[in-house]
């Protein structure tokens, strides 16, 4: 029972990161109908910025801030310099371009930092605190929950309570009408990319210290897990992404706890396959016919 409790809490902490990353995917999907396959590589790039800043200044928090800033900037740059120029008539094109970005970003990171794992520092202890003799949560897990919670709340606030959030939703919902009403649709899309990429950078900063370390490919499997989480919740639904992320985190934690960590990739694939075959619209999809 103790073990089950531990695995559950550990899974929720892992799931919080997947939720943040899935949220980033959903943000771009809602804004521009693109699944950003370069999200993982962009997030790793931001984490490398943090690594450099921390190495230069000795402060984790300066690096953390730099990563978020780099994430925001990178998202905006990718949208303005690349995605805007792509012909969006075929849905294949943005996906292919995003994959080109993956190759490019990972290769540049490999050239600058080398293709080896670098230790990533965690700001808090990762040993679990014991409550009544049971190992429960580590300070780092609490930090993860707090960070994801704050970002989630901030996103909700931006999208539901601010004028700019309203404009972003309008630009995504009805681009032509919004443009007529004076909304800068392109600018809103860029802002959406920046926000999503910033959230992705946060997720990378949170997840990398818990894995093998910093590597140009560090986010590959995290991306697949987060994509599974986003599909599980329905690509269109931010609350779905959070629930999906927590669900995937729990499942992976149980699989690695009871069956062995080697099986995690296989479990992700099996879950994705099951969801796509049984309920491709996700758990939260409204029942609609496919538009023809």
């Amino acid at each position, binding site marked *: 029972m103790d073990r089950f409790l531990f695995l559950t809490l550990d899974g929720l902490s892992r799931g919080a990161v997947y939720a943040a990353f899935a949220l980033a995917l959903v943000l771009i999907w809602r804004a521009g109908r693109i699944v950003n396959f370069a999200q993982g590589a962009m997030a790793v790039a931001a984490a490398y910025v943090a690594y450099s800043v921390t190495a230069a200044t000795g402060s984790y928090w300066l690096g953390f801030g730099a990563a978020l800033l780099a994430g925001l900037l990178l998202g905006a740059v990718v949208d303005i310099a690349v995605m805007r120029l792509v012909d969006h008539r075929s849905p294949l094109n943005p996906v292919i371009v995003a994959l*080109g*970005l993956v190759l490019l970003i990972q290769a540049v990171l490999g050239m600058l930092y080398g293709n080896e794992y670098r230790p990533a520092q965690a700001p808090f202890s990762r040993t679990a605190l014991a409550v009544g003799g049971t190992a429960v949560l580590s300070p780092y897990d609490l930090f993860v929950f707090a960070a994801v919670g704050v970002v989630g709340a901030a996103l909700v606030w931006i999208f539901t309570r601010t004028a700019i959030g309203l404009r972003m939703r309008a630009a995504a919902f009805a681009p032509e009408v919004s443009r007529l009403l004076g909304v800068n649709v392109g600018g809103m899309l860029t802002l959406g990319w920046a926000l999503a990429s910033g959230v992705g950078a946060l997720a990378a900063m949170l997840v990398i210290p818990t894995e093998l370390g910093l590597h140009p490919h560090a986010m590959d499997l995290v991306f697949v897990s987060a*994509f599974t989480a986003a599909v599980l919740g329905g690509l269109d639904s931010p609350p779905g992404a959070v629930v999906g992320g927590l669900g995937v985190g729990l499942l992976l934690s149980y699989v690695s706890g009871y069956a062995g960590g080697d099986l995690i990739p296989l479990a*992700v694939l099996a879950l994705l*396959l099951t969801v796509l075959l049984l309920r*491709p619209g996700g758990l939260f999809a409204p029942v609609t016919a496919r538009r023809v």
Partner: protein
Amino acid sequence: MSATRASAPPHQHRAVDLVRPGRPVPTLIRHLAVAAGAALVVLLVSYQLDSYRNFQLATVAAYLCATAGLTILTGLCGQLSLGHGALMATGAYTVALCQSAFFDRGVTSGSVLLLSLVAAVAVTVTVGLVVGVAAARLRGPYLAGLTLAVAVVVPALTVTFDGVFNGEQGLAVPLAPAPQGLGVYFPHERWQLWVAAGATLLCLVVLANLVRSRYGRLFRAVRDDEVAARLAGIHVARTQVIAFVVSAAGAGLGGALLAVLAQSVSPGAFGLTLSLFLLMAVVIGGLGRLAGAVWGAFLLVALPDLTHSLTNLFTLSPAAAQRLEGNLPLAIFGATLIVVMIAAPGGVQGLLSRLTRALRARWPAGRS
């Protein structure tokens, strides 16, 4: 509107252009003739080149199977697969396991390689069928995501089941030497080139015929407009599964040939990067044309070589040189892909056909 488009797909207009006076040559004969010509060229070239170039050419042939298969799927049928690297791994590991099984039982004749290659294609087709059936209901980002998961997960499986696949170390592929009849000093690389080129040309003839057949037309109809295709009585899901299986067979053969060339397989060679590379090659070569797949395969082999000689021009510290050498081809590939998608979506082959069309317009057919 869409229904009319499906009943007269664009390729029929092209077929009209191609009609020449006199009796038309059957497609199969024409393709066989081209293949025989190509085989002759490879044969002659294999005696001119040194061992290393022969090996490189053989690698091009191996990649060509996979890129041609991917061209059928992505270019012709409009489905994006990021999992072809994993399918190549399936073929490669099957060949390794089969060859080891044969050699362990003392069967060391050269002809068992043929059996192993057939087994590799069969196993990959089965895997392709499973993925294809799952994928046929998916479109756009969902299909890309699923195949991406396959590409990330399959190499990891070799570590999970390391009793069979021997983990990161991989397996050796025992091979019989070149036949005695060719002489004792016959270079091994030339023999490898013959095997790879033979298998690849066979594969290309089959695929080229498929492109020109009823199935090729079905694939294009599904790609251009699914709804119209369905209205015209085409079973869309079945057509997509067939395309996936055919392209999986190509990838399996390509992976098997790669394993035969390298005489070993390891998961590191079949990571996500390989899948992305294949897609890049197909897109840069020109989506939807088998000729584009040829350009792409050459690019896959030539680019690392070019960047290697490029980095040799500069004097770098060994560590920096190593970093640059591993990553520069990736960076160039990624950047080229983005530029091609934005500036010239037809790829190399698209540019070439535009050029020839422009030339024909300047010098009309009567004079050329």
